[in-house]
């Protein structure tokens, strides 16, 4: 079933240097799956994620032929309706959890508050449920973490707390923007496992934004490759190594490899046509 349909999404920023057409004719359909959006910095990944939830700055021009979430036409939603969508149906996890959590409230209070709003339960029940939630995201000492402030916890811990917060409303879609990029490899896998377990349990569809092709190759089902604001290739994750677009291939090949070390790494030559040409496989 199609959970979200995006057709010809265009995003233009107003900047001091004039208009910046950052997202160009992006179309895709999200099913019950883990869909990756990959590409180099500045290719427009975060802008796409934010445009779905109308989180770009107010002066931004966002147009689309279709932005359909289930029965809801997101383009036709007013501010109040879009806020309800954000609170209950589509959640976004940002790269740095420290910016998303409230710095003057303990981690536990924030989770309890979110829980009591969504489940309409007492404070004591909310605390119990929050501790349960912390356990669910594999935090070994929930009592201790409960009473800590966001700046007192590590990046990996913060990202787990964010995931806990995001799944509380049991949303239909989670948009995770580089959720593990700031984490050490030894915790990256844990965080991905937790995310997978929760979204599978609660039947949540995932949009996973990342610059890390090797990571999405293992972790996601399908991949959209962005370049210069456009989707240049849409491909099954396990077929990434046989990608057809020269940009995707260039990205894959430029990674250093332990098993097959090359003295000199291949360097990509960018083609102007990638910015305009429709690519078909």
């Amino acid at each position, binding site marked *: 079933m199609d959970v979200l349909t995006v057709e010809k999404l265009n995003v233009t920023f107003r900047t001091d240097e004039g208009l910046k057409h950052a997202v160009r004719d992006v179309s895709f359909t999200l099913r019950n799956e883990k869909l990756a959006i990959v590409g180099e910095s500045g290719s427009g990944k975060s802008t796409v994620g934010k445009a779905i939830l109308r989180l770009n700055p107010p002066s931004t021009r966002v147009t689309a032929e279709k932005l359909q979430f289930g029965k809801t036409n997101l383009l036709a939603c007013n501010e109040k309706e879009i806020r309800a969508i954000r609170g209950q149906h589509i959640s976004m996890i940002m790269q740095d959890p420290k910016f998303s959590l409230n710095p003057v409230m303990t981690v536990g209070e924030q989770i309890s508050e979110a829980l009591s709003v969504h489940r309409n339960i007492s404070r004591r029940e909310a605390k119990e449920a929050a501790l349960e939630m912390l356990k669910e995201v594999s935090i070994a000492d929930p009592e201790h973490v409960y009473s800590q402030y966001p700046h007192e916890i590590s990046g990996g811990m913060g990202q787990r707390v964010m995931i806990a917060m995001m799944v509380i409303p049991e949303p239909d879609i989670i948009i995770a923007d580089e959720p593990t990029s700031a984490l050490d490899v030894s915790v990256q896998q844990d965080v991905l496992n937790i995310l997978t377990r929760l979204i599978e349990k609660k039947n949540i569809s995932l949009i996973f934004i990342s610059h890390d092709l090797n990571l999405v190759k*293992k972790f996601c089902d399908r991949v959209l490759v962005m370049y210069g604001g456009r989707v240049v290739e849409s491909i099954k994750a396990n077929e990434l190594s046989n990608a057809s677009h020269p940009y995707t291939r260039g990205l894959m090949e430029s990674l250093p490899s332990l098993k097959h070390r090359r003295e000199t790494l291949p360097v990509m030559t960018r083609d102007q046509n990638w910015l305009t040409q429709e690519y078909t496989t």
Partner: protein
Amino acid sequence: MISIQSLSFDMPGSTKSKRILNDINISIGKGECFGLVGESGSGKTSILKCLAGQFQGWEGAIAIQGKSLAETSLKERSNTMQMVFQDPYGALHPRHTIRKILNEPLAIKGLSDKSERILKALKDVGLDETFLPRYPHQLSGGQRQRVAIARAIILDPDIILLDEPTSALDVSVQAEILNLLTSLHRRHQLTYLMVSHDLGVIAHLCERVAVMKSGEIVEVVSRDDLVEGNVAHAYTKVLLQHALSRE
């Protein structure tokens, strides 16, 4: 070339000091590329900072080309050793032109034929004179890292300390910078001590790697050992397995 023996360092704090390096022993030969890998906070940058003189008051013995570092002035150190940082933007003065940025180390040393050396350093890193009047913000991330590398090699040092030199770059730009580091290493007979959290990047450039955890070196492995899975410590296995699982 670099010999580090029983290096320990306590970071002074408001109430009590905290041990951030504990009994570090490394010996790096001339012309070698040596890597430090480990998770954030494990002390990689701190080792470089002890070498570069940014951290004072460490214990142990460090010698560069046989000479005790404790008896080497900061000025002398900059003749033999230069550092390149992760964030090329933060490391370059935002209001200085590239010309001024590259001129600075030469001016401090009171060297003549400055323009010539600046042009040569730019060429060495694959840039040209059109960059001289520009400011760092007018450059791409990769170009900025090239400028930072040009500044590091302009005084013809023997050793370059590289702190996550490609972590902030996209993979295609990372490849260009790694290629540049490889070719400079060869052409200038440099010794590298490079820090990265990415085992793939470290193993690409370095023949030997020290794996760090909580301020200590848990083991030193060669590139060949890594490729063959000949590693002893559980943490090295985690790093290796992660790197291999994604190829």
